[in-house]
């Protein structure tokens, strides 16, 4: 059939219009703010499990995968490990585009809650693999934090802890021995130790990598809980104001780390990784606030180990000193390092469950713990080999003496409060805010949320 020129022009225009309409339709179908239908990132292959996270590190993850696939040769695990900032971008993009990986690394609280609707409750999986009393395997604080932020009445576990940790201080035992001092147990001890160490040499007495918001917060939480255990969490729950005298006092002690010269000059510009830890491992600092994970420096599978880190020979862990008028004993602050969740739309949930449970408490977990990456979320799991008595003694102290006694969370529930506290602490450290103003700035953010 031959159309006249006018009709043909009209047909052409209609064709172009139809094409444009199709493009527009496709665009609107994927518009912002919509909830996309999920599909597995693995493309629906039931013998492939996809895993994305920022932790454990790539090399360790490969060993865990090899351990699982050796026992299950027909299974493929497709894993990608990112740096944390890149990971949260990747996860958010995948979650909003319907391509969540089967297993994802999560932090407790805000991050887990953000993805809660897209994650599978894990009780059934845990019961199938570990039995009805599966919860007794875990450190209580890990399970408690795994459900942090769940809506009232929602008792599901959308993530289970893989690794847990304490946050604490580490001392360079050689520098302290040379100066004839012990790790400080009280605030006065800390002041005296810093004075002695400053006179003893060029090393920083107390290296505070305060550029990182997370580190500012964990140091503040140790101070605040040593002053008045649990008060900051009451403030976050709205039970007491942030301007409570004890919380303001905690901000004041944070401030004194800077005004009394306890922290090194320029602390707000020093990040913990890589610069802070490099300085500490090189012997340029006597004390540093980090956490239990520092034991990973003595991982025997590492190609190079610094002399101080060899078998943890040069280090001693200790808790933040007690404060005048505060709790008589230093409080243990800690919680989950990394937790794992399973996508609600995993292609093969049972297989994903098998991988997850193997990595938390099976052969994969043993491989992970052999690298001293951090402390296991389950009790009774130890490295198969220690490289020194000191390493074993520190491991025992962290896993058996400290971790079971961790009562206070190293996290705030809300990312807004987490950021507000970190900003307030930076303001105090920089001399821009008084402790009272810092507390008021956090309260202002809390009021906005309410």
């Amino acid at each position: 059939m031959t159309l006249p020129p006018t009709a043909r022009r009209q047909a052409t225009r209609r064709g172009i219009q139809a094409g444009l309409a199709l493009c527009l339709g496709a665009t609107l179908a994927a518009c912002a703010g919509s909830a996309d239908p999920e599909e597995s990132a693995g493309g629906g292959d039931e013998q492939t499990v996809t895993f994305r996270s920022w932790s454990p590190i790539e090399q360790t993850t490969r060993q865990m995968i090899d351990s699982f696939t050796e026992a299950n040769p027909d299974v493929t695990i497709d894993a990608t490990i990112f740096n944390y900032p890149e990971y949260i971008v990747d996860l958010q993009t995948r979650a909003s585009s319907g391509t969540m990986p089967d297993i994802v690394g999560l932090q407790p609280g805000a991050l887990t809650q953000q993805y809660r609707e897209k994650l599978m409750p894990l009780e059934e999986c845990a019961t199938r693999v570990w039995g009805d009393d599966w919860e007794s395997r875990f450190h209580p604080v890990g399970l408690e934090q795994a459900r942090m932020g769940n809506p009232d009445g929602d008792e599901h576990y959308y993530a289970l802890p893989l690794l847990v940790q304490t946050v604490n201080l580490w001392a360079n035992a050689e520098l302290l021995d040379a100066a004839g001092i012990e790790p400080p147990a009280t605030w006065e001890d800390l002041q005296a130790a810093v004075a002695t160490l400053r006179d003893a040499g060029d090393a920083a007495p107390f290296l505070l990598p305060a550029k990182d918001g997370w580190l500012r917060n964990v140091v503040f939480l140790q101070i605040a809980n040593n002053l008045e255990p649990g008060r900051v969490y009451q403030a976050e729950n709205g039970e007491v104001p942030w301007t409570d005298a004890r919380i303001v006092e905690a901000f004041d002690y944070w401030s004194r780390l800077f005004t009394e010269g306890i922290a090194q000059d320029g602390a707000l510009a020093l990040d913990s990784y890589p610069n802070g830890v490099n300085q500490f491992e090189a012997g340029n600092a006597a004390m540093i606030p980090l956490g239990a994970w520092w034991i990973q420096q003595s991982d025997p599978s590492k190609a190079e180990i610094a002399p101080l880190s060899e078998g943890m020979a040069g280090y001693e862990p200790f808790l933040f000193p007690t404060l005048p008028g505060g709790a008589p004993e230093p409080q243990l602050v800690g919680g989950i390092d990394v937790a794992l969740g399973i996508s609600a739309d995993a292609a093969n949930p049972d297989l994903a469950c098998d991988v997850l449970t193997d990595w938390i408490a099976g052969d994969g977990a043993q491989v992970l713990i052999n690298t001293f990456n951090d402390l296991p979320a389950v009790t009774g799991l130890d490295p198969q080999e220690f490289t020194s008595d000191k390493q074993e003694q520190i491991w025992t102290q962290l896993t058996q003496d400290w971790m079971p006694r961790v009562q206070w969370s190293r996290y705030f529930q809300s990312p807004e409060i987490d950021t507000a506290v970190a900003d307030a602490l930076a303001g105090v450290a920089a001399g821009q805010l008084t402790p009272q103003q810092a507390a008021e700035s956090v309260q202002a953010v809390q009021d906005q949320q309410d």
Partner: protein
Amino acid sequence: MAAYTSDVQVTRAPRVTGTGPRRPARRLTRERLVALGFIAPAVALFAVFVVYPIVFNIQASLLDWDGVSAGTPAGLDNYRDLLADPTFHTTLRNSALWIGLTIVPQAALGFALAWLLNTRLRGRTVYRTLFFLPAVLSPVVVGIVWQRLLDPFNGVLAQLGRATGIDVLTRAYLSDPSTAIIAVIVVNVWMWTGFSMLFYLAGLQLVDHNVVEAARIDGATGWQLIRRIVLPLLKPTHLALLLLGIIGSLKTFELVWVLTEGGPNHASELMPTYLFKQAFQLQSFGYGATIAVVLLVVAVGSSLAMLRTFGSRFITGERS
């Protein structure tokens, strides 16, 4: 190349007027379809990678959305909140500082280096490479290195300052809210001066030597020669660097992130770092998208303002 001066005659298509002879409709349609076929791939790519993200961002900026769950319409609330947000005001002030304090020093230093290295200096190729080297390094690497250099406790500059008694070298520039943004700007100037130098070198080599010689014969001295002859001839280079500088300033992220993370207490925050924090750390994707939309408006607005002020020919290198 912005400094290129074209001598090619531009063939202009005859202007089609309503009174001219009309081509047959069938041929016109076929030509149009062929033309559409040629531009379709570019249009499709433009639509997918430019138009769609812009539309998506604008739409997201009108939502209260964490980027994962279904968002709820928020109207213009995000924009209202942004206008009242003191941290956003800081990012605007820092962006203005960044534009002012990077583009001019980079251009001045870049021109000075280019002028020196455009002579018959021995080893000039080595010098050119050395001065350009920072521009090819990753901003992350540059940030980590400068963080170590500027560390007032154990950094190279602080140690040098203590050894020589020059106190100014021992100050904590990155951790002081009053100096943090300036310190990052200085590192940025160090990093990108070689890039400006390369532009000016290319521009200088295209300057007509006859004009320069004529000026010398007329008695122009060194500074007069630079100010009255060379610099005006390099106008397309200046303008191209200005445009690239403005756009580069608005999208700077990595260097600030590694050196200060926008701190202390947001003192060195720029729009891209604040956007990232809001969208991905605070789970306020809608608010982050709002910052992105404002950033886009500022970038497009400043580019259009430049095109309107100076015309588009400085980009092609054509003389008016």
